[in-house]
């Protein structure tokens, strides 16, 4: 019996020796492999992060970490390879390793100057297959492990069965032989049997170590060890089941990262001087920094109490009106609105007032829904105080400057104005310099005051409905004297039927005068500064254009800044303050308008600004504006200089021209005419040819060669019969015979004034004689003519160069006039070329067709040169 019992025990021990060690090794290997997968996964993700970090921060520490991470991955891969037994898995690991090495190599070889977004996308794209491979590899390894485990379980069951059987036999034997040892052997064995059963049911707590050192103790210990191994494996299996657990560990890692970033952010926020609050969708505060707590304290958690709590902090808008709770920046941000730098006051329940500059924005989740709001604000009490002090300082200083300036300026004015008080011209000049600089100082002070007022928001507009024509007229009046001094012409045209504007007239005049005096300052002598007005229902645009040297594109954006002048030397030369345009812009914007500048070097500069129109009710109070017959009001009377030695004729012309609305200057000889031309800069000059002293030809020659006078249109009014064919006269001088009647002279003057000289006109006419006549007539009016023999040539010319106007015959070979019109309409959708149709065909049939195709004017042959000139002049002016 004893032998039998001992034999049973030996059998058990042998079984254990056979089964347990091999199972242990396999379990350990599998556990290690699966562990490696987790480590490998994490190392790869870390590596990817490090690569991304490296994009943003090229720090040596990141580079080091990257290298460490890479060698870790390499170690894992090598270790894994040494552990694998399955050939299929070995092959898979090889693939994984290759893919990984390619990924790293690609990252290293990628152009680091590429955009981070691009590089990230590359990295992400090639990372995905590695992950997929690893996942597949891991899945397969688990399958293999499961197979191995199933095998182990079968062995275990077999083993338990033997143990149970042997225990049964042993129990009988021992009971019979040594009842005394029952307690010693049988009880533990019963216990062991019981445990084995429970373990089969999955209860591992049954296993325990005993302190017995005999064979049974050995048996129990071995059993416990085996159970532990199973338990460990079971746990590993449970941990490794699917990716979910892997992901859980990943999530923990990300959470750690997020929490660290969050802690950094909170610490940073505490040190920021601006107050910052993040709201939950229900309006409760999710996050706040110290600066916010300083103002608002901490609100109660209870939603009802919370509402009352916030309600005690009154928000007052800049205009002094309270802001209702639903219009608070936080409330608006939670509705999805963004607020930027809004100035308001928070009235604290304890009586403190915080003037703040606040911004707010919604926080959106990945679906784009508002998931909260961030509000940031800044206490601007000190800023306001400093601002107020600055304004006060400016105000006092300017006031203190005005008093001494008053005496200096007044004294010099009175001395200079007294006849013969300063006989020495040198002294007069010096006093004049003193006076000029007084004026300049006054302008600077006024400008600085205006800027200060605008910046402090103290510029109050006294708006009323006014006619733009009145504003333009007032402004022009101010710049007439400086324009005359600078030898610059002024022109201003305001169309009829403009809606009145709703503005502060003084301020708009100030803005317009600024632009006009700038234009006059920079316009070359003899050029014209033109004011034009266009309007729509809601706004009116006023533009001031000069023909000056223009502004380089790179300087345009600096133009409206304070104390900016494109060329500081020109600033001193032109006597500007560098504030005019900044003030003008602010004034326009205060009205709700906008200001624009277009400029071309050596061509000129054009400033334009918009103003809001008055509503019908607002405009009801003012009288309609007076307009002249052509529908638009010319606000500057044109000056005509009559040069004629015949007193009666001159007197007659003077009366007629005055009646026609011109300002008339006259001279009876060329010498005094030249003086007048230089000082008064007439818009047009009529000249008699036969005069004593310098004759008409000589006078015209002088005009044409004197800078500033070259471009003045000249009308020769001559009694000489052959004056029209006079070869000595420049080609662009119009000639009228004294016998042709007064109307003719008047018409030529108005044509000379209206006609833009130097336009490029395309004449498409197949009849050679007529083409010659048209060309000569247009050339005589100062235009450049491109002759074309048919429609094809005409279209080619239009393709080739800038054409200002087209004179077009309808019936031509190849491509006729109609087709030219049709093609033109297609070609020049945006900028139509004005077209004068000349046709021999009966009007009624073709006129409508031509006009429908885009012709502006229809003239029937025979063409009268004067009529053509008139239409050309009209079209060129209306299209400029």
């Amino acid at each position: 019996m004893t032998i039998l019992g001992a034999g049973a025990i030996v059998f058990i021990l042998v079984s254990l020796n056979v089964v347990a060690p091999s199972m242990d090794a396999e379990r350990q290997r599998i556990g290690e492999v699966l562990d490696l997968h987790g480590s490998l996964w994490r190392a790869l993700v870390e590596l990817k992060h490090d690569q991304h970090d490296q994009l943003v921060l090229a720090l040596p520490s990141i580079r080091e970490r990257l290298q460490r991470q890479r060698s870790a991955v390499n170690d894992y891969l090598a270790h894994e390879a040494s552990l694998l037994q399955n050939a299929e898995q070995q092959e898979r690991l090889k693939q994984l390793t290759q893919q990984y090495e390619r990924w790293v190599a690609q990252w290293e070889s990628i152009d680091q100057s590429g955009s981070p977004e691009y590089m990230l996308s590359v990295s992400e794209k090639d990372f995905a297959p590695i992950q997929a491979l690893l996942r597949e590899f891991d899945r397969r390894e688990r399958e293999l492990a499961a197979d191995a485990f199933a095998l182990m379980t079968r062995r275990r069951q077999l083993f338990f069965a033997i143990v149970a059987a042997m225990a049964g036999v042993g129990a009988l034997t021992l009971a019979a032989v040594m009842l005394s040892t029952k307690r010693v052997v049988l009880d533990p064995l019963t216990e062991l049997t019981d445990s084995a059963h429970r373990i089969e049911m999955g209860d591992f707590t049954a296993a325990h170590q005993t302190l017995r050192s005999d064979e049974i103790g050995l048996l129990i210990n071995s059993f416990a060890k085996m159970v532990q191994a199973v338990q460990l494996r079971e746990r590993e299996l449970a941990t490794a089941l699917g990716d979910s657990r892997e992901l859980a560990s990943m999530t923990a890692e990300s959470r750690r990262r997020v929490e660290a970033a969050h802690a950094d952010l909170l610490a940073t926020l505490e040190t920021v001087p601006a107050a910052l609050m993040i709201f939950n969708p229900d309006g409760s505060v999710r996050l706040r920094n110290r600066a916010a707590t300083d103002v608002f304290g901490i609100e109660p958690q209870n939603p009802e109490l919370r509402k009352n709590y916030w309600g005690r902090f009154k928000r007052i808008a800049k205009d002094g009106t309270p802001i209702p709770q639903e219009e608070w920046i936080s409330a608006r941000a939670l509705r999805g609105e963004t607020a930027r730098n809004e100035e308001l006051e928070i009235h604290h329940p304890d009586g403190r007032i915080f003037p703040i500059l606040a911004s707010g924005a919604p926080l959106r989740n990945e679906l784009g829904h508002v998931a909260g709001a961030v509000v940031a604000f800044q206490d601007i009490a000190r800023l306001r105080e400093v601002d107020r002090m600055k304004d006060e300082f400016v105000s006092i200083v300017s006031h203190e400057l005005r008093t001494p300036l008053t005496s200096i300026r007044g004294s010099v004015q009175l001395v200079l104005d007294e006849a013969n008080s300063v006989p020495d011209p040198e002294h007069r000049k010096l006093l004049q310099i003193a006076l000029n600089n007084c004026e300049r100082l006054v302008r600077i002070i006024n400008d600085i005051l205006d800027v200060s007022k605008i910046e402090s928001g103290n510029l109050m507009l006294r708006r009323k409905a006014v006619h733009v024509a009145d504003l333009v007229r007032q402004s022009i009046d101010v710049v007439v004297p400086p324009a005359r001094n600078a030898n610059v012409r002024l022109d201003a045209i305001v169309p009829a039927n403009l809606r009145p504007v709703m503005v502060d007239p003084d301020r708009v005049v100030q803005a317009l005068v600024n632009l006009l005096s700038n234009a006059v300052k920079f316009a070359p002598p003899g050029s014209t500064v033109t004011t034009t007005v266009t309007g729509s229902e809601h706004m009116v645009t006023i533009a001031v254009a000069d023909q000056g040297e223009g502004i380089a594109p790179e300087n345009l954006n600096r133009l409206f800044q304070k104390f900016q002048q494109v060329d500081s030397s020109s600033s001193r030369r032109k006597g500007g303050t560098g504030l005019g345009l900044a003030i003008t812009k602010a004034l326009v914007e205060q009205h709700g308008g906008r200001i624009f500048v277009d400029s071309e070097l050596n061509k000129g500069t054009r400033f334009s600004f918009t103003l809001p129109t008055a509503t019908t009710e607002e405009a009801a109070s003012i009288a309609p504006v007076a307009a002249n017959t052509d529908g638009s009001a010319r606000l500057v009377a044109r000056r005509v200089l009559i040069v004629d030695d015949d007193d009666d004729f001159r007197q007659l012309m003077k009366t007629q021209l005055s009646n026609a609305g011109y300002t008339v200057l006259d001279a009876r000889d060329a010498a005094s005419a030249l003086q007048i031309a230089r000082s008064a800069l007439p818009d047009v000059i009529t000249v008699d040819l036969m005069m004593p002293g310098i004759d008409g030809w000589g006078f015209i020659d002088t005009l044409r060669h004197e800078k500033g006078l070259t471009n003045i249109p000249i009308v020769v009014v001559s009694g000489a019969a052959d004056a029209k064919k006079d070869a000595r006269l420049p080609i662009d001088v119009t000639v009228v015979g004294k016998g042709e009647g007064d109307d003719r002279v008047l018409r030529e003057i108005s044509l000379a004034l209206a006609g833009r000289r130097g336009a490029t006109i395309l004449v498409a006419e197949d009849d050679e004689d007529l083409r010659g006549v048209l060309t000569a007539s247009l050339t005589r009016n100062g235009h450049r003519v491109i002759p074309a023999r048919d429609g094809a040539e005409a279209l080619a010319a239009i393709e080739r160069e800038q054409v200002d106007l087209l004179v077009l015959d309808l019936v031509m070979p190849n491509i006729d006039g109609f087709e030219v019109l049709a093609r033109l309409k297609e070609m020049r959708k945006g900028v139509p070329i004005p077209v004068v149709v000349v046709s021999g065909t009966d009007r009624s049939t073709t006129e409508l067709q031509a006009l429908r195709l885009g012709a502006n004017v229809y003239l029937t042959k025979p063409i009268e040169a004067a009529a053509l000139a008139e239409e050309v002049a009209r079209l060129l002016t209306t299209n400029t």
Partner: protein
Amino acid sequence: MTVVLAEDDLDIQLVARLALKRAGFVVRVVGNGQEALDAIRQEPPDVVLLDWMMPELDGPETCRRLKADPATASIPVIFLTAKSQESEIQRGLSLGAAGYVTKPFDALTLGQHVKDIVNNSGGVRL
């Protein structure tokens, strides 16, 4: 036309006096508001020019008293002001001033401006 000019700055006094004299005014010059009130009550002028800031009695207060006294209420008052504050101008007009002249004024046209204001007497801005 007679004018009482109240101005505490002696240099401006002289310039303004000469400028007004050239324009044909008979000018009496005083150095503050109180002296102006005395001079005006003694012999009412056609127009009064008041500097805004003066010692003892300033321009606005002088104007208020002139307008409060039926004997002097109808005399047009013109302020000399440094235009630093538009509120000043508004306040001056609300006190019953006929207009204002901004400093530094134009010595050659000061007289004409004063005449224009007196003729319009409706708060014309210069």
